[in-house]
């Protein structure tokens, strides 16, 4: 399908951080605060998301320390409930949903399309400020009397408790709009700003994943908007839609909530598939195996994700009929996910695998996501779910998929595009050590929780039976390892900004368009869109490694 390789028709990239790149083009706070440049917005998103991740992670460490022993350890009942609510809400709404699409997507998507910017730059900036406003709104709930309803805001508890649920719900409401506008921006950019010659099946897989995610963001997020609006109005004005005393129905709230929240978990993990889809061919220096199957399976997951929300409600009083329909369709989602994993592994066959940090994160993703995905099947089987629902088995499952999937892919993406975004190389040895530490910490934290869960340890428990204590202790040790791993990663990445080796245009020898321009890229990205004549992962053999600049350059025909 790929035509004979001709050199991409862009002037040979200037190596080293060019004199006039987007980081130094304008100076001063306003040049950042009012920027319309997608790369700067991406950097601001990255910084904000990682700060929120640190805060959410801090809450997680406090929770794990509290669970070292049954009963009171460091905090009391209510603080514990508020902590796990905020840990959940911050991680879901502030970190993982905007994480890969808004931070890495904003940096890489226009570059991979050879475009100058996203379709609506001002809307892009507006969605960042909506993220900021939503974050402030949610953190006012932290300051006032933090919500203690869990990130799921289940009625009638959320409509009757005196804690500050309204600011948290409105914070999530505003963050929903930020997510919608990012999704909308990406769909239009992918449709309208593709370079000449780049058909749908010449798009990098990262773009395919962002496209499927954007479709979910646009189609599902409005429903959580109306749900949270109804919840807040129910709390303040008692309109009686979710309150049983006034004729309402709490299970209806669960339908409204999960209609968004299950597609939302695919908003969290499908961009991760995209990053891994880009990393594995580059670091195996081999064309992706089954490109069409991976691309289309992203869309299949996006669509099927809308039909299965009821598998969160098997024991909530949902009828058997509805439960069986949801369970049956849930199994269908396992198929495209399996296709993706198998195709990635097939890509590595007969490749030349370089185990740089991004590749370590990609391999960690494959390992952890396989376990996460398979345990999802346990929860889809209806009668086993009766035993496992709302236990630590579920906690372990979604942490394996969220922490192991979304966050590991986010870190892999950060390391992969770090040279391009900042023009600096991070320290490779520390990167690899950090990746191993995160991988180990993750498994030690969450695998014991599978065992606790199937033994009957319920979820969101402040006080627990003594026989679960040693597993909780093991999990807490893992949590500290994880925290240490992230701290170390943050440390050497920030240090690389100043003292890192200047990055060449194409350190990893990738063939996607963002590596054909200098790093950090000029503010206008491309003079005009390059004409694309081959697939995103073709002709790695026409690149040759240049020792001096530490990166790949086009093989000149004479050589």
């Amino acid at each position, binding site marked *: 399908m790929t035509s004979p390789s001709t050199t991409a028709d862009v*002037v040979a990239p200037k190596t080293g951080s060019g004199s006039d790149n987007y980081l130094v083009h304008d100076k001063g706070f306003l040049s950042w605060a009012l920027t319309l440049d997608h790369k700067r917005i991406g950097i601001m998103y990255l910084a904000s998301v990682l700060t929120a991740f640190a805060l959410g992670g801090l809450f997680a460490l406090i929770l794990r320390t509290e669970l070292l022993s049954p009963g009171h350890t460091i905090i009391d009942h209510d603080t514990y409930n508020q902590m796990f609510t905020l840990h959940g809400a911050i991680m879901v709404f502030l970190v993982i949903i905007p994480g890969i699409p808004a931070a890495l997507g904003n940096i890489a998507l226009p570059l991979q399309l050879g475009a100058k910017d996203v379709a*609506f730059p*001002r*809307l892009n900036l507006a969605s960042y400020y909506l993220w900021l406003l939503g974050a402030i709104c949610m953190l006012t709930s932290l300051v006032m009397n933090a919500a203690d309803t869990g990130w799921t805001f289940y009625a009638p508890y959320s409509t009757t408790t005196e804690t500050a649920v309204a600011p948290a719900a409105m914070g999530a409401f505003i963050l929903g709009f930020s997510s919608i506008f990012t*999704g909308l921006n990406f769909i239009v950019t992918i449709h309208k700003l593709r370079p000449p010659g780049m058909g749908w099946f010449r798009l990098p897989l990262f773009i395919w994943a962002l496209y499927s995610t954007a479709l979910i963001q646009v189609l599902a997020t*409005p429903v959580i908007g109306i749900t949270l609006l109804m919840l807040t109005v129910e709390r303040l004005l008692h309109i009686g839609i979710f309150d049983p005393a006034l004729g309402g129905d709490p299970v209806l709230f669960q339908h409204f909530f999960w209609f968004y929240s299950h597609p939302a978990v695919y908003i969290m993990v499908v961009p991760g598939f995209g990053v891994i889809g880009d990393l594995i061919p580059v670091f195996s220096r081999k064309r992706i195996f089954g490109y069409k199957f991976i691309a289309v399976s992203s869309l299949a997951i996006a669509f099927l994700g809308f039909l299965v929300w009821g598998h969160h409600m098997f024991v909530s009083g949902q009828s058997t009929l509805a439960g069986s329909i949801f369970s049956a369709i849930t199994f269908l989602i396992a198929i495209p996910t399996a296709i993706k994993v198998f195709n990635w592994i097939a890509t590595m066959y007969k490749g030349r695998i370089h185990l740089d940090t991004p590749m370590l994160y990609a391999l960690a993703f494959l390992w952890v996501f396989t376990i996460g995905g398979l345990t999802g099947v346990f929860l889809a089987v209806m009668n086993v779910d009766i035993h496992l629902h709302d236990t630590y088995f579920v906690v372990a499952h979604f942490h394996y998929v969220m922490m192991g999937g979304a966050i590991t892919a986010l870190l892999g993406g950060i390391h992969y595009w770090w040279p391009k975004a900042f023009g600096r190389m991070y320290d490779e040895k520390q990167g690899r050590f950090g990746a191993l530490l995160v991988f180990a910490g993750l498994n030690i934290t969450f695998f014991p929780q599978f065992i606790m869960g199937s033994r009957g340890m319920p979820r969101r428990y402040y006080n627990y039976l003594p026989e679960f204590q040693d597993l909780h202790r093991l999990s807490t040790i893992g949590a500290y390892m994880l925290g240490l791993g992230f701290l170390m990663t943050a440390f050497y990445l920030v240090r690389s900004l100043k003292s890192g080796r200047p990055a060449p245009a194409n350190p990893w020898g990738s063939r996607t368009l963002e590596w054909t321009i200098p790093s950090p890229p000029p503010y206008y990205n491309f003079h005009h869109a390059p*004409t694309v004549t081959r697939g995103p992962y073709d002709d790695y053999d026409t690149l040759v490694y240049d020792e001096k600049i530490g990166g790949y350059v086009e093989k000149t025909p004479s050589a």
Partner: protein
Amino acid sequence: MSDPTPQAEPKSEGSTPRPAAVADAKHAGNGHAQADEHHGHSEHPFLAHHFDTPQQQFEAGKLGIWLFLLTEVLFFAGLFCAYTVYRAIRPEVFVYAHYFLDTRLGAVNTCVLLLSSLTAAWAVRNAQLRQHKHLMVNIVITIACACTFMVVKYFEYSHKVHDGLLWGPNFAPKEQVWELKTFKDKHPEAAEYAEKLAHAAKHAEKAPAGAAAAPAAHGAAAAPDAHGATDEPSEPLPKPTLEQVEPLVAAGLVGEKAESPIGVSRPRNAHVFFSIYFFMTGLHGLHVLIGIGIWIWLLFKAKRGVFGPNYFGPIDYAALYWHLVDLIWIYLFPLLYLIH
């Protein structure tokens, strides 16, 4: 640098310094194209730097607004779902409550919005043909229609607040449903019969104020099913005919759906209708207000005569948004006002 695909227009070469970011006052509400005031492409003053042709910019904006309309449809989907679930489960609440609504006002509002939809579509046409005066007239008419719609809504709301038809615990209707003109016109006999029932119930409570309160209350108008007889100890009511009882049962005034088993009252949780009514029409009204804001902003832009065949995006997207607001009202009107 050879460029294999023929470009539509020769593009000015060289990267001109990037125009200072003109933070257009456009609030993030809808996603239509961002038009920079000045940029490199000389012959199209409104072409943003990252687009190559005005058509590409227009079509990008068009896709953007359609995606935004997608989110609006799903935003209202939550409310339509709440409406459908509660109507499927408690039809009598909706039959009972719709008598309180004024169908005439609803119809007037629908026609006003349809007219404003026409003037919006017409305005797009004017923008394309550079008819600036007509464009401004049409925008003004659209704004006027929108304001009329809001004024009519104001009257409806104040009437309901005055009559105590609010949501949740503060639902305390002043006049009973069978005293309403709309109910009397449709079911004259049922209205009388309900009158008698209410009178009898009041009478039954007053009369045996002393000891044997229970049996009399029990006796008065035991829940008559559709054809049951109502034995009434004080003066026996004639056996009710079908037309007398059937509307009462349908509206949940009597029978097991009613609030109090004796006498005639209102269906249980009747306030849910008004919760849904105020939420839906309130949110729709908010979208009409946002629409008015956008049209006023476009009025100023139109006054400067910027629109033409190559740049009419903002008018087109505002018109699409306006048509969707009208579309939602087209469904709200029969669902809330025309219940049978």
